């Protein structure tokens, strides 16, 4: 039981537990905030996997961006006045069954497959490599994402903005 393992399990527990809360709690605000922990957990896992840069991005984009966005969503789509914002649930049974089976399938796959593994060597830092890759092999995708963001910008704006009538 090395330190590595302990940290791993720690993050694992955080991630899963919080994620569980996210999808089960009836209060939207709660789940919104618990999602924060999930993201943190995932970021931690990234670190364990030696993807430091990615972990940072995860925290910045998810926590700093998406989560805020979501919370805004929550706020904007509810009366601020009412204290706790509850939401109902549907399809519990089919969800339980379907997800159960799916989970079973996935885990078995994950466990029984002999994945393509090789002796691991962890690079010191990934930032440089990532930057290089982004601008050479993945330059096309990189640019495309730029355009995508532009389109999304336009789209989101034009949908969300209040029409002047």
């Amino acid at each position: 039981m090395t330190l590595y393992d302990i940290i791993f399990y720690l993050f694992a527990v955080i991630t899963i537990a919080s994620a569980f809360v996210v999808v089960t709690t009836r209060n939207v605000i709660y789940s919104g905030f618990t999602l924060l922990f999930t993201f943190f957990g995932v970021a931690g896992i990234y670190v364990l996997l030696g993807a430091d840069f990615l972990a940072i991005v995860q925290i910045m984009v998810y926590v700093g961006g998406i989560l805020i966005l979501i919370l805004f969503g929550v706020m904007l789509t509810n009366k601020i006045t009412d204290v706790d914002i509850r939401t109902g649930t549907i399809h519990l049974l089919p969800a339980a069954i379907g997800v159960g089976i799916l989970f079973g399938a996935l885990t078995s796959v994950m466990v029984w497959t002999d994945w393509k593994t090789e002796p691991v060597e962890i690079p010191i830092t990934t930032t440089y490599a990532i930057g290089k890759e982004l601008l050479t092999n993945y330059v096309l995708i990189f640019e495309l994402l730029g355009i995508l963001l532009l389109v999304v910008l336009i789209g989101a704006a034009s949908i969300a903005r209040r029409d002047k009538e």
Partner: protein
Amino acid sequence: MTESVLSTLSLIILFLPLFGFTVVILLGKRFPKLYLFEVAILTIAFILSVVVMYSKLAYYLNIDIISSFNWITIGAAPLAGVINIELGIKIDNVTVIMLFVVNLISMLVHIFSIEYMHGDQRYTRYFANLGLFTFSMLGIVLTHNLLMMYIFWELVGLSSYLLIGHWYEKKSAADAAKKAFIVNRIGDIGMFIGILILFTHYKTFTFDTIFAQISQGNIPFNSEAWLTAAGILVFMGAVGKSAQFPLHVWLPDAMEGPTPVSALIHAATMVAAGVYLVTRIFVMLTADAMLVIAVVGAFTSLVAATIALTQNDIKKVLAYSTVSQLGYMIMSLGVGAYVFAFFHLVTHAFFKACLFLGSGSVIHAMHHEQDIRNMGGLRKKLPLTYATFLISTIAISGIPLTSGFLSKDGILAGTLAFGKLTGHWLIPIMGFTVAAMTAFYMFRLVIMTFHGEPRDHHKYDHAHESPWVMVGPLVVLAALSIFIWYTPNPLSPDAGWFMKNWVKTPNTVVPESSRFEFMQSASQETEVHGEVVHSPLYTETMHWAHYPAMGMSILLAGLGILFAFLFYQWKKINADNLATKIKLLYNFSLNKWYLDEAYDATAVSGTLNFSKILSWFDNKIVDGAVNGSAWLGRFISRLSNLFDTFVVDGLVNFTAFFGGFIGFAFRKLQTGKVQTYIVFVVFAVIILLLFFKPF
């Protein structure tokens, strides 16, 4: 006059009436007087036929004149050989005599009708149809092949249909016409199949070719059974046309037509066509076939006679007597007395026509009263009609010095001989019984109509003798019922030219094994062509049978007449009491053996019901099976109003029904809740994963 001229003339005779028909039917509306044209045409035709008959009998007595042409050329057909369909005419003695008879009677009827039908609202149409009939009848007479026979066979059917239904606004008339046609069709189908058998085997319709083939032992499908079948089947045509039991039921109803029509078609000519047909195929009849024919004929004549005993409608009586006489002729063909059958055909044509026209004259005088119970004493009012009527009655009753006596006597002798030769004694017995009955009911008719006291004075007072256009024909026909035209010797026809020279029993062509031994075939022919060629055995049996037959027939006829007088003239026996005594029998006879009822109950309604069932089947099951069946649709629709709108929507149809069902199922999936869809997606993934595991 050459043969070609002769055949040309016959063709002219054949087509003259058609020409008349066409002209009158097309222009009749515009020129009402055209009926005279029609009459003129017939007169010409008659004169020509006399000429033809004379020249044929005088110059070509023993030569058959045949002229024919290719109608349909199919040529060398695969697997079938050369097939060409010929039409053509054959003129032999029988033909010319028939030509004469038909034209004569037709002409007389035309003339008679001028007065009788006067004032009818479809006067010209009537004459046109008469012309059409004459044409068809002549066609039957002249044809030299089965196909043409069948064609004209149907055409006479048509014209008889039109003429019976002349007064179609009378439902009974329309019904009678329909009945006549359909009942005849039944017979025709048999005839048609018979023809098919012959054609399939011989690839020709021509009589002589077929007979020649048979005589060389080439019989249909090499089985005598088929030959017999062919004979009987073709004979079925005759059963229909000549109103033989069990298809005779149409003839009495046919009396709904105008009386002259009954005289021409349903007494003298068309109904005799059946007999004529059998004479044509006589030579290919096997023993079994002949026996069948004889029995049918005999039985028919018996049935008809028994019915005739009690009928009270003057025309019905005559109708049944016609049936009975036709039965005689058929019977006599069956027993091989070919010549006498034909002879009787001719004589009967004359006196029966006379009787019908006479009855027509009576009805005319009595203002369309037909029930003899309302007549009586008319002989003072209608002396000429009475005289002619009486002569014909004597003739039909078979009293010496009449033509009827000669022919009937011959037929009876033939049956007797047949009985002796083959042991079928029942046939002569029936024959003689009928002879007695005939005499009885005919005289009953005469007495009730002309003798005694008038029963309906009102009508009686207005009755008066018909004008000459009507009486003239009667006289002619009555005259022709005297023996002198046929033979010098009033007791035996054999001496007469008619039998001695003109008409001969043709040689049978049936193989030895399947014919009566008394029938002679060409191979055994001893004397030159044109002599009577019965085997010696048969000839001597006929001689043996001649006098007994004569005696008995005279005796029985006398008895019949005597009883008639006892019953109705002198009232020694009360008919009604007797009737009540034997009520069962009486009603049986009065109601025509309940045959019509029986047919209605079985065949007719059976067919109709079956058709109803089938049509139900068609709507509900066949259509239904494809249609998802209306009732099922409605049933479902009760389950769900969804289907209701569905049915109303006019998509009652299996595909749509089924499709609607599936669609309905699919629709349930489309809930509009996106999360439900996602559930489906998840399950879809799982299912795909489970079902399409890699190999």
